[in-house]
């Protein structure tokens, strides 16, 4: 008898999706209600996860579904950010007129897919989760049908993502062929160091996952999709798939393939260095805030990968810390972007920020905090994220990686400073409305305060994450 207790949260969210869908079909003009109900069901889902002992370690369904500290923590992170994303974008989707009933339901199904990904302990299950989240994301990217950029971004994401899924699946089949199993534990037992097929399989899987977190050289889709999608979807893209993909990265690299670390370590190091450098340099010339944050997220993923490339628990923990902190920084950034609204029109060019500090001191202060934090300047939280990563990297004496990474933060600082310059030093240009919905205000206030005051007491986050021991 399988103990279903542990997957109550997944069951609940599936049921919620179906009930909400039925309600939406039979009840007219219920999009607002469904939106709020989806937020509520995410809260309930969070409560269900927290209800069970978080340090449980069980494997369900023939060891293909794993509930452990890592998966529980990442799910909590995922659902928390889901809640914040929905809270902050409720006004946006009304004004851009994409407040259809499908919108929150697609968000929920994508989150379900990610939860499956996070818990998967089997290649097939992992692939199913990945496809579930991707399918929902294709639709979400092109949700603003009237906007040609949005359609383009959906199509672009679909085509490229299908390609990468193909590679991923090919990698999975190679690994199955050379190890005789799709279960991570069994692969780890039967692994044969010398077979080239296995190495190719790993490379294909890493390629597919690198595509999902938009690491260089598989980043091409990110800027276009970030720019084209509605902002409420961009914030989703920027945060949630990355949490899921990093977890899968950890699981695949460190459970079945830990013994052949010398085979994949160099690949991850390369991805990391390329992402850090490319993301920092390419962002310099950008004019659109969403496009800029796309490049910035490419470089941030480079740092997260640097933590993963180390091959120690410390490295994994630093990477998870990085993702957790990155989540709040992005949330704060996009909450600021959501506030640039006047006459039912949203502004997303960097030039629109010109002289913002004259009329909106608090909003510009939040921008200031977020941007310096993204640049990694102490004592803001972004510094600690990088600090933990480089602590782990230097422990293994990977000095080249550390020095390149830190030098690219200097390059990156330049384009963050450019935005600050436009906000604070340039003459004023636009004046925006200041009545925002409470959800947006909460998410901005919460994330900004977290960024600003994390340094006072950094221990709790570290202590929670320190319990994640994969190796």
């Amino acid at each position, binding site marked *: 008898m399988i103990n279903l207790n542990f997957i109550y949260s997944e069951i609940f969210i599936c049921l919620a999706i179906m009930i909400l869908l039925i309600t939406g079909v039979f009840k007219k003009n219920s999009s607002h209600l469904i939106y709020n109900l989806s937020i509520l069901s995410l809260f309930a889902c969070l409560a269900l996860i927290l209800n069970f002992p978080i340090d449980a370690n069980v494997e369900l369904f023939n060891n293909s579904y794993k509930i452990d500290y890592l998966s529980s923590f990442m799910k909590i992170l995922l659902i928390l950010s889901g809640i914040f994303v929905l809270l902050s974008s409720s006004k946006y989707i009304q004004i851009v007129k994409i407040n259809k009933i499908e919108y929150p339901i697609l968000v929920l199904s994508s989150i379900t897919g990610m939860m499956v990904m996070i818990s998967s302990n089997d290649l097939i299950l992992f692939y199913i989760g990945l496809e579930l989240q991707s399918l929902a994301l294709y639709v979400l990217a092109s949700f603003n049908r009237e906007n040609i950029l949005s359609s383009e971004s959906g199509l672009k994401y679909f085509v490229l993502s299908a390609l990468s899924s193909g590679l991923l699946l090919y990698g999975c089949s190679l690994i199955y062929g050379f190890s005789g199993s799709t279960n991570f534990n069994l692969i780890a037992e039967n692994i044969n160091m010398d077979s080239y097929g296995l190495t190719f399989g790993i490379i294909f899987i890493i390629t597919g996952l690198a595509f999902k977190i938009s690491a260089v050289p598989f980043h091409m889709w990110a800027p276009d999709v970030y720019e084209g999608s509605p902002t409420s979807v961009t914030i989703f893209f920027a945060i949630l798939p990355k949490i899921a993909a990093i977890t899968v990265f950890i699981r695949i690299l460190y459970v079945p393939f830990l013994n052949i670390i010398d085979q994949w370590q160099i690949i991850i190091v390369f991805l990391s260095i390329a992402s850090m450098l490319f993301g920092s340099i390419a962002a310099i010339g950008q004019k659109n805030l969403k496009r800029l944050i796309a490049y910035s997220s490419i470089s941030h993923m480079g740092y997260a990968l640097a933590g993963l490339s180390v091959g120690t628990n410390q490295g994994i923990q630093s990477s998870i810390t990085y993702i957790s902190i990155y989540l709040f920084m992005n949330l704060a950034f996009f909450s600021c972007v959501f506030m640039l609204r006047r006459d039912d029109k949203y502004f997303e060019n960097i030039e629109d920020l010109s002289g913002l500090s004259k009329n909106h*001191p608090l909003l510009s202060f939040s921008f200031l905090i977020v941007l*310096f934090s993204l640049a990694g*300047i*102490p*004592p803001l939280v972004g*510094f600690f994220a990088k*600090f933990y990563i*480089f*602590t782990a990297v*230097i*422990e293994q004496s990977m*000095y080249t990686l*550390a*020095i390149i990474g*830190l*030098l690219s*933060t*200097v390059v990156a*600082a*330049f384009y963050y*400073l450019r935005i*600050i*310059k436009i906000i*604070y*030093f340039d003459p004023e240009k636009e004046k925006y409305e200041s009545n925002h919905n409470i959800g947006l205000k909460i998410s901005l206030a919460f994330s900004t305060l977290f960024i600003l005051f994390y*340094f006072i007491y*950094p*221990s709790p986050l*570290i*202590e929670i994450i320190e319990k994640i021991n994969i190796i």
Partner: protein
Amino acid sequence: MDFPILSSLILLPLLGSIFIFFSKSKSNTYLTIKYLALFVSFANFILSLYLWYLFDPSTSEFQFLEEQSWIKGFINYKVGIDGISILFIILTTFITPLCVVSVNSTIKYRLKDFLVAILIMESLMIGVFCSLDLVIFYLFFEGGLIPMFLIIGIWGGDRRVYSAFKFFLYTLLGSVLMLVAIISIYWITGTTDVMYLYNLGIDQKYQYLLWLAFFSSFAVKTPMWPVHTWLPDAHVEAPTAGSVLLAAILLKMAGYGFIRFSIGLFPIASEYFIPLIYILSLIAIIYTSLVALMQEDMKKLIAYSSVAHMGFVTLGIFTFTQQGLEGSIFQMISHGLVSAALFLSVGVIYERMHTRLIANYGGLVSVMPKYAIVLMVFTLGAVGLPGTTGFIGEFLILIGAFKKSFLVAVIASIGVILSAAYMLWLYKRVIFGEIKKNEIKKIADLNKSEIFILSSLVLPIIFFGFYPEPLLNTTEISIENLIEMYNKNLNSILIEK
């Protein structure tokens, strides 16, 4: 448990800045905010004087220690002071109220934000001088970039954006290598606590690279030739109070860092790299003095003179003699007072004439007699005339240098002559001569707040020039101990060989 006086020094300005940030002030004069900022910074000054009173100069141990677990099992928040750091703290708390008073005439818009930035700067700078953990030190050291970037960028002159970016990126680039070094130290020794590291010592084979990484950060901040180019730009564009903070305190963070970390943690590497430091310092002294002679902009001239003076400081530090090190600290304090005073003086006439070009002035002595007198004192202080603090610092450094190398000391002495040349020439061109312009005839002499600021700088410059004992006494034992430790480390290496 004792009253946590150091943390109070750090926190008080921060709390003040939070109050000011959230206070609503409708009127254009911002009177309450100004008084609040002045009160906070002055209270901090009194507190630091009290600290000096409590301070026991007869021991080289760290005093007023506070330790608090910060990142569990990894980094502790640890602050404490010894004879080396206390003077810098007092310098910081002394200069900040003067900056706050000086905003009256120099800052025309967004005064509230400016005062917030100044007070946050004060907090961070005090933090730098009393932190006893490398990571905490780095946090304060780098955190100062944010307010300074804004001070230059928002309230600066025409090329403020360029200067602010140059300042920020130069310093950040220098410091990231220091971060790598700090993390490496943690993995090599298992701690970032400076007191433990002093006892533990760092293995010789690591010292050279670590020293270079720290050097890259401090050299940019000092600034040493050839990475000094951000300083003239930043000084020229920053508002008066910003220049004062930059010259008086920010530059001292690097000198302090050299003494506390480079010498304290890496004695063998410090000995090894002496030629590098001497060459760079001498180039800074001679070359930037010559450059200063050619400047047409007053602020730029003073900025280049700062580079030259800091060249003396680095030279003195790396003589590893009692006189050289004491002289360096004295010179830093003296330069903090003198350069702050000079920038404030330039600010005074800039507010009246809106130009910093030397050629536009001349003959000020007949219209601004009081100004001419105080500027004379500051100029002589910068030249290093006996009876001012500048003399004692340079004199001690040169004694230290003579002990170490005759040639180095002779070349450095030429710098003293050059500094007299450019400073006195500047004074002559601005104050004496004929009045060339009609606007100068109408210029008003110092007003009350300016007299207050400038005279409160004249007093310590002359007082400590004649009676340096209090300052030298405070530092003496700590430096003796530092040199003793340094020699012990070197000898132990020689014995091993």
